[in-house]
């Protein structure tokens, strides 16, 4: 399913040239010139089709003479632990010493494309799942080449040799041994093995599956870690960009006099911005002069308007009363009309900003015939092509270096590459203004909160039909919200008959047996840019499904977990396993502590299933979540420590949105600006949490996102258990419920 590659091919030939790094450039780029083993594969290869592998254009492993083994990570590291997990996969099959393993984020290059998606990207909780075979095959191939090099040197058959902890050893005969570091140069000159084996039994693993601390802790506790915002070049300028107050708005007039007078400011120029708008860029010798100039800059904007949230919600609620484009239709669509009883509920979800701790930024060095960019990109292939188009260069003239990022949650994976295209526009404007220097674009927090590309606002309406005995007989579900994928290269593959699958995921693929299920969708056009936000559609669909199922359990006077287990399609045994684990670990069948309510929710996303059981209390309409017990089935847990951290993390991210998150607009202008009015979860609000992993030998599935969807419904269900009030609007407001 190389669908993204195909998607990009539809963009026109100029954008399609595959980007290759030649070997010499690569060596220069990584500072590895002068030896060491380098391995590369142009596409994913399994043990079975290893013969299809080709040797560099590019590389994944570098072994230095002292044995230091550097693994090129073809993903963005932004907290999810991929720069530890992928090296673990290689180390396992390479049989090297873990303490000598280092990780390096790979620049944009075809060889680093995701084996499944066909482009280089980080998203959909796929990093470990997609590279599970690829990285182990690479490790195994490197090991075979090191063994072959030793066999050649010693004049013995490779089958007589073995490896141990970074050495090739000769178990019998002369019992020689040679370090990988001493063999690397010779091994690099050998052909790739045509067949490689992978360890078949997890019992043989020495590092995969073991709780392993992160490789990047030291640099992140002493301040030496280099994020995109930390990248500095000689003579570099800093640029701030004033965006129009309404998305796509235009500058009518501006007076640069006061801004230009700020010491350190070198240019104040109008530039094209995202969505056909224009804005004003301030180029200065540092952030503070630019910021100071921005504060005194006079800009008049052309009249423009956009949605007001309260009105938009009214329209959405009206739409939710009418069937939309069909997304799933089972059985009898008229069944709801014959129901003895109905439970009807409307659910509302706001726009949400990603608000990663590190604001968007990029360092851009634009020359006449080349452009070099450093940034924390989740979408290297797409961003590289966009930078090429914006700068009028060929893709192979663009070098995109991946910097680790301070969070992203989807914001750094934008099909329109908005901030990078704007950055190139600024770099071009600098050239026109006679400033021949690289530039660092920095978004302020206000730019970030007001910059759009939000999780879309959604309204859902569900009418569940029950018989006289409270058994479920029908489920009618209408979803209203903007399409994320329409107008992007993804549309062709993920929008069918007008229905954006990212709006219906988690509903149309429900693991519950919902008789006469009818799902339809409205995708209104609204002048607010939208994007995936950690867990994408599941961030709202899980809330609806798990809230309504909870209502049905109450209506049937059944235990919420027992009701779910009975409603589950037997095909979904993993969901059952997760529910049972969370029930057993949370003390579900025991008494609820005094003054607290307990609730549960379970949801499958990105191939994994997470359930949370939560305990809450309420004081003067303030909800406090005391305790969360989580269970996850993510297939085989490559690094259980990361799995635990990611479930905590995803839960906290979802809880933050449930308690606080909302972006609202008035006449197209975003009303929030910073953490003061877009609050996020704070340490005192973090519940005690325990994470339990279902033992599994299945291939790994997603871990970064699946913990987010079920937390909000679990909390709402617990609040209901305590107060009898149903929360159906996010963020929660008990006073309004």
């Amino acid at each position, binding site marked *: 399913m190389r669908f993204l590659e195909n998607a990009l091919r539809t963009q026109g030939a100029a954008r399609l040239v595959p980007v290759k790094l030649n070997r010499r450039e690569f060596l220069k780029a990584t500072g590895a010139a002068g030896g060491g083993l380098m391995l590369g594969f142009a596409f994913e290869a399994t043990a079975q089709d290893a013969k299809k592998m080709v040797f560099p254009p590019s590389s994944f492993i570098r072994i230095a003479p002292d044995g230091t083994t550097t693994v090129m990570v073809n993903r963005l590291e932004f907290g999810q632990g991929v720069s530890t997990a992928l090296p673990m996969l290689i180390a396992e099959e390479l049989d090297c010493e873990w303490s000598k393993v280092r990780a390096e984020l790979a620049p944009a290059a075809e060889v680093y494309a995701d084996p499944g998606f066909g482009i280089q990207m980080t998203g959909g909780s796929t990093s470990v799942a997609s590279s599970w075979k690829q990285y182990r095959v690479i490790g195994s191939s490197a090991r075979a080449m090191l063994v072959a090099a030793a066999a050649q040197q010693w004049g013995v058959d490779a089958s007589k040799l073995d490896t141990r902890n970074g050495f090739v050893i000769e178990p019998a005969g002369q019992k020689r041994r040679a370090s990988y570091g001493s063999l690397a140069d010779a091994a690099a000159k050998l052909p790739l093995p045509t067949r490689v084996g992978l360890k078949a039994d997890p019992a043989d693993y020495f590092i995969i599956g073991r709780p392993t601390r992160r490789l990047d802790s030291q640099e992140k506790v002493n301040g030496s870690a280099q994020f995109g915002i930390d990248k500095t070049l000689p003579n570099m300028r800093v640029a701030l960009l004033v965006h129009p107050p309404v998305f796509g708005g235009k500058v009518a007039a501006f007076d640069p006099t006061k801004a230009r007078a700020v010491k350190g400011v070198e240019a104040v120029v109008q530039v094209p911005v995202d969505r056909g708008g224009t804005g004003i860029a301030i180029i200065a010798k540092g952030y503070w002069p630019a*910021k100071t100039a921005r504060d005194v800059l006079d800009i008049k904007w052309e009249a423009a308007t956009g949605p007001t949230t309260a009105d938009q919600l009214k329209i959405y609620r009206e739409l939710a009363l009418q069937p939309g484009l069909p997304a799933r239709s089972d059985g009898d669509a008229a069944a709801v009309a014959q129901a003895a009883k109905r439970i009807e509920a409307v659910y509302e979800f706001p726009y949400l900003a990603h608000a990663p701790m590190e604001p968007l930024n990029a360092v851009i060095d634009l020359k006449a015939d080349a452009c070099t960019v450093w940034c924390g990109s989740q979408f290297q292939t797409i961003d590289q092509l966009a930078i090429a188009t914006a700068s009028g260069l060929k893709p192979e003239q663009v070098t995109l270096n991946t910097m*680790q990022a301070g969070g992203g949650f989807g914001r750094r994976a934008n099909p329109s590459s908005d901030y990078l295209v704007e950055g190139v526009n600024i770099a071009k404007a600098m050239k026109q203004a006679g400033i021949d220097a690289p530039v660092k674009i920095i978004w302020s927090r206000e730019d970030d909160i007001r910059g759009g590309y939000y999780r879309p606002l959604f309204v859902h309406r569900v009418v569940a039909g029950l018989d006289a005995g409270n058994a479920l007989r029908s489920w009618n579900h209408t979803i209203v919200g903007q399409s994320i994928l329409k107008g992007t290269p993804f549309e062709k593959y993920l929008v069918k008959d007008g229905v954006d699958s990212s709006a219906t995921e988690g509903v149309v693929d429900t693991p519950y047996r919902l008789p006469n299920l009818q799902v339809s969708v409205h995708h209104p056009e609204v002048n607010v840019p939208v994007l995936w936000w950690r867990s994408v559609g599941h961030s709202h669909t899980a809330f609806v499904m798990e809230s309504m199922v909870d209502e049905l359990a109450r209506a049937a006077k059944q235990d919420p977990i027992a009701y779910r287990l009975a409603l589950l399609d037997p095909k979904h045994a993993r969901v059952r396993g997760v529910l049972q684990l969370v029930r057993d670990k949370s003390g579900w069948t025991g008494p609820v502590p005094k003054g607290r309510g307990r609730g549960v929710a379970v949801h499958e996303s990105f191939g994994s299933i997470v359930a949370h059981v939560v305990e809450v209390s309420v004081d003067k309409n303030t909800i406090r979540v005391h305790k969360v017990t989580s269970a996850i089935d993510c297939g085989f847990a490559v690094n259980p420590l990361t799995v635990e951290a990611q479930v905590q993390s995803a839960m906290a991210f979802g809880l933050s949105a449930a308690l606080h998150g909302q972006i609202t607009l008035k006449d197209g202008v975003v009303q929030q600006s910073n953490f003061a009015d877009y609050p996020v979860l704070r340490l005192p609000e973090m519940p005690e949490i325990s994470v339990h992993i279902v033992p599994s030998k299945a291939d790994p599935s997603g871990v970064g996102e699946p913990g987010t969807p079920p937390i909000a419904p679990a909390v709402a269900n617990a609040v209901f258990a305590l107060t009898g009030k149903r929360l159906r609007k996010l963020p929660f407001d008990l006073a309004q419920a």
Partner: protein
Amino acid sequence: MTRLTVNGKAVEVDADPATPLLWALRDNLGMTGTKFGCGIAACGACTVHVGGQPVRSCVTPISSVSGPVTTIEGASGDRVGKAVQDAWIKHDVVQCGYCQSGQIMAATALLKSKKNPSEADIDSALSGNLCRCGTYARIRAAVKDAARTLA
């Protein structure tokens, strides 16, 4: 020219006296361990010590800095700071890591003023340091562990 002492070293900063300490550190002195998150003292990512007290460097003009400055780059030079960093590694606290310079400086300041902080003390001292990765549970554990190590 503004004179500062940063991590024990005397330095001169050629910037407007109103420039926040954060940008003097990052843009003028090239010390990028201290992070920009909000610019309004609402996230704690820029936390440094001035005269031993935790301050938000993004709203602290260099002209107002009257004591010695300690940043994350200098944290390990102090017994408490080193213990906090070690506990952070032991508990595998970091994820993206962007907020952690500020978290560590805030935690260090807490343990310097309170050797054996209660849960409430930890909650209170770190409530202004945001983490979008949600590493809070491990931060709590690491602060307690660091306190035990120092006892």
